[in-house]
Each structure stands twice: as C-alpha cells, then as structure tokens.
C-alpha cells in the first residue's frame, strides 16, 4: 500500500476537446494533493488538442498523462479500462477521481474490480482523514435523505466518482508549468467487443442544461404538457435552459434529458427558477449548488420554499405571464436607452 502515491484526476475529452468536468475535478484533486503533499496528475485518454492539455496544467495539474491512441478517441469500456489498469499498475496512484458522467460511471466500476479497489459513487464531498491520510468520500444516500461518509482503508488506489457541477472549475493560472507524459499502449489492450456505429446529438436545449447559466424548470403544478410553453418562454427571455421535475417527465410532458434531481441531472446555474415544483428531497439533491433559487408555488408549505432565496406563494398561471410581460417591458426599455 505504501507504494501507492499521488493523486489522479481522470480528465475527459469529447471529440478532442477537454470537458469542463475535468476542471471541476482539478479543483478537488488540487485540494487533496496539497493536503497530502503529493503531486497531482491529470490522466486523459484519446487524442486531445494541445491547448486543452496545457489548460489542464494551468488549472492545477502538475503532470498530464496522455494515452492518445486513436482507438481511445471515443469512450469504449474495454480499451479504456485496460488502458487505465495498465497506467495504474505502472504509476500506482493512491487516489483516482473521475466525473460521475456516463463514461466515468462506467469506467470506474470496471477499473475498481480489475484493481481490487474500493469505489464510491457520486460524491459531493472529498477530504483527507487527518491521522491516516485516507480519502473520506461523502455522498447522498437513501434518496438524498442522508449523507454518508465512506473510506477504503485497506485498498489502493482509493477511487471515487464526483457529481458534475458539485464544485466550481479550477481557475487558470497562465504562469503554471508541468510535464506532459505520453504513454504508448499495447494494441492488444485496445481491442473492443463493443463497436460504436453512430451518434445522434440530443436537442441542444436538453444537452446544455448542465452548462446553462439559467435553468427554468416546471413540475406537476403545470397541470399539462402544453403549459411548458410558459416555462419555455421564460427560459428564452432569460437565455436559459429548460428543466423539469421527475413527475413532469414521467407524465411525458418533456423528455428525460431535462430531468433535474437525484435520478436526473445536477445543475449549478447562477439562477434556478422553478414553478409548480414541490421541492422533494430528490429534486433538491439536483439543485442545491445553484447560486440563486427562485420558486413559484401555490402551497405555502411546499418544501421548495425552504431552499428558495426568493419565493412567491401564488398561482403560477398568474405569476408567470405577468413576470414574462414585465421582463419583456424591462428589456424593451433597456434596449431603448442603449
């Protein structure tokens, strides 16, 4: 176990471009590495543009380990797992953290079995235990009702996936320098029994809900699917994306990619504005890191008001149209003065 040292974050690229989750992981990884007094490495699989690799250094990595075989261009479980297992064996990091993304949540359990390591899913907090230097991994459990802290005292590496948007991306420091280490991977490891035949992009709106600065969401209080028109209109005015509670998704009013919450997406926008959403613990699990939460609900007891910075107890069918009118008026007035 003593042979294992150093912190790794598993950076992600899509179509050659480094994804934001990588920078969020650098925030986490930097803090852990500094507490332990060890180097922080970002590992990235697949061909990635050079500017992206440098950015990983500027945002906190001491080293970037790159396996840029073309077979790794897109996520495929077997080549990714075998490559990672090979890298882990060669470099022996004590901690590996990855994004709780569709690829991270697939790769990490495969790797954990292969390396006989403990793995904690979907963490919202990571820390180092004082006396032992063990990784303390905190995550919501039982439908978000409790927070559990977990460790893997007797196994290395210690592995965790981290909820996207549960922390801010690390800022870039242009003065930072670090090493780029390119690894050659044995072609045997790159074989795959899964073939990627194609890709259909989701509608842009659903795809960017996690990246959006503003999310306007609706729930069962909208009464029927057509009334999402109000939510869409408000989102368009504020330049935001559209979210929904599970109840609204289950009723077929809007697609699953828009679902916010424990079994949907975590969002962390500057503004989360929702109407007709009760604020179940599972829904709150997906919005807690939002900077501002605004709620409209006819029930003064609705739980959503416990987390709202500003709330209106009222009928959304009165509040939203008026709000839309007033924002339009304001925007028109501002446009007129410039």
């Amino acid at each position, binding site marked *: 176990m003593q042979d294992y040292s150093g912190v790794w974050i598993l950076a992600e690229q899509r179509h050659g471009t480094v994804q934001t989750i990588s920078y969020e992981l650098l925030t986490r990884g930097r803090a852990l590495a500094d507490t332990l007094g060890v180097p922080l490495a970002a590992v990235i699989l697949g061909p990635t543009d050079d500017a992206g690799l440098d950015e990983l250094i500027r945002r906190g990595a001491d080293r970037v380990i790159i396996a840029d075989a073309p077979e790794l261009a897109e996520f495929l479980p077997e080549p990714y797992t075998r490559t990672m297992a090979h890298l882990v064996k060669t470099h022996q990091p004590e901690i590996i953290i990855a994004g709780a993304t569709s690829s991270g*949540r697939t790769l990490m*359990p495969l790797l954990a079995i292969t390396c006989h390591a403990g793995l904690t899913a979907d963490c919202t907090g990571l820390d180092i235990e004082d006396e032992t230097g063990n990784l303390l991994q905190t995550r919501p459990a039982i439908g978000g009702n409790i*927070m559990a802290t977990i460790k893997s005292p007797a196994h290395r590496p210690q592995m965790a996936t981290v909820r996207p948007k549960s922390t801010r991306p690390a800022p870039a420091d242009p003065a930072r320098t670090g090493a780029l280490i390119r690894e050659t991977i044995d072609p045997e490891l790159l074989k795959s029994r*899964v073939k990627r035949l194609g890709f*259909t992009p989701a509608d842009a709106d659903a795809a960017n809900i996690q990246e959006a600065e503003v999310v306007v969401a609706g729930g069962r209080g909208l009464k029927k699917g057509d009334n999402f028109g109000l939510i869409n209109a408000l989102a368009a005015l504020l330049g935001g994306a559209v979210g929904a509670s599970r109840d609204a998704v289950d009723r077929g009013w809007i697609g699953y990619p828009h679902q916010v919450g424990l*079994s949907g997406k975590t969002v962390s926008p500057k503004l989360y504005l929702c109407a007709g959403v009760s604020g*179940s613990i599972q829904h709150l699990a997906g919005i807690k890191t939002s900077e501002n939460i605004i709620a409209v609900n006819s029930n003064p007891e609705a739980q959503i008001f416990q987390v709202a910075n500003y709330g209106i107890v*009222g009928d959304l069918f009165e509040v939203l149209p008026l709000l839309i009118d007033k924002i339009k008026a304001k*925007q028109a007035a501002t446009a007129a003065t410039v």
Partner: protein
Amino acid sequence: MNIIIPIKQVPETSNVKMDPETGTMIREGLVSIINPLDLFAIELGIVLQEEAGGSTTVLSMGPPKAAEALREAMAMGCTDGILLSDRKFAGSDTWATSYALAQAIRKNGDFDLVICGERATDGDTGQVGPGIAAWLDLPVATYVSRLVENRPGSLVVERLVEDGYETLEVEKPCVLTVVKEAAYPRLPTLRGKQRARKTELPVWGAVDIDADPAALGLKGSPTRVVKINTPKVTRSGDIRTAGDPAELEAAVDDLVAYLEKIDLV
C-alpha cells in the same frame, strides 16, 4: 436466448421519514418493492424472450424476503428466479455484491445476456452492473435507452450520454444496464401470479456459488461507511404571498428587481 436479470428489493423511499434525532431511516411501515429502475430491465428481458424464445431468470441477492421481488418479476412474465441469500453476503458493497452475483450467473450455466437496472434507489451507485461485467469479463453497454436490433452474435443498442445517443454494437454474451426510456413495464397478471407461486425458487448460499469467502460480505468489501448525517438544506429566503392582485403586482416587481440585481435582466 437465455437472459439473466439481477434485481434488487428496496424500501419504497419516495416518502421516507428520517428520525431527526438519530439521522436514521424510520423503517416502520416501509413497504419493500422491486427497485423501480429494475422494472425496465425486466420488461426488456421479457420482450426479448418473447421474440427469441429461451428463458428469463431474475436473480436477487438479499434477505429471504427478497423472494417476494422475484415472484413479482415472475408474475410479470420472467420464467425463472434464483434467490441468493446467506448471512455471509451481509454488508457487501458493490465490489462484493457484483462478485456474488457474477458467481451465481456463472453457476447457473449458459446465457446470452445480463440486463441490470441503471441503479438501485437505495444504494444508488450504478456500479453493480458494470461490476458484474468486469467479474465475468464481458462487454458492457451502460445507460441503454433502446434496443435497436437483436442480431445473431450481437445486439445493437442506443446509449444515452450527456450530449445525445450513441449507437453501439455489442458482442454477445454481454451485460446491459438500462435507463427508463428502454421499455414500458407491464403489470403482473393474475395468471402470472399463479404461475409464479407454483414455480420453484431455488435459494443459493455462498457454498452453492463456489464463492471465495474472503471476497464476500463486509469482510470482502473494500469500502467502509464511517459516518452518517442528515443534511440540512435551508436558506432564509424572502417568501412573498401573492393572494390578491396588488400583492401579485408587488411580488412580481420585486422578482424582476431581484433578477436585475443578479444581472439577468
């Protein structure tokens, strides 16, 4: 086509009450159900078996009570069930759970496909499905949202990712984990229930699956829970009532002012 469907029995957690003093779940009056996300795996399995013939075996590791979940799945149409139940399995994390399930799948004989739910609503890790694939050294596709085609040696599936859907061809035998878009679960039928009651339900322990005792239960689990606490989510927000038109007007004006303050209008 022989299909194995690992399912978990979970507490019905949509209105779980927590004891504010101890931070533990109040278990009284909680009903146990099939993990809701496993219903999509069950449905997809039954549909495939109806088309291609063969068997659908639901497999659950849990206390004796988990037999209820298996019988319910059989009432929906699964042909067989296996209960993995042994004190030695208690306290298993995802590493040890996927090991035990993989051993049981091996023991059960030839199969073409394992279908798991995306995640269990209690453990909520989504790690057991890929874990099973790793133990059995099988190809895996996670977050499967649609079965496109069942080919002789492979399956073509659609997989839900952050920015869209991937189309993948996966060699059989393989493991899939499915999301709720994958199928529309049917309800158990009366005839199904009768048949399920009559079907024999084998119960296997650690010995029956040739498991390495060191890899089971709490002892075999790399992870340890060290602390539990109840999160408090409260912001002292400004909550207005819009009971009459004047209040409505004022509340909305202040809302616009709030948006202005944070530079959004």
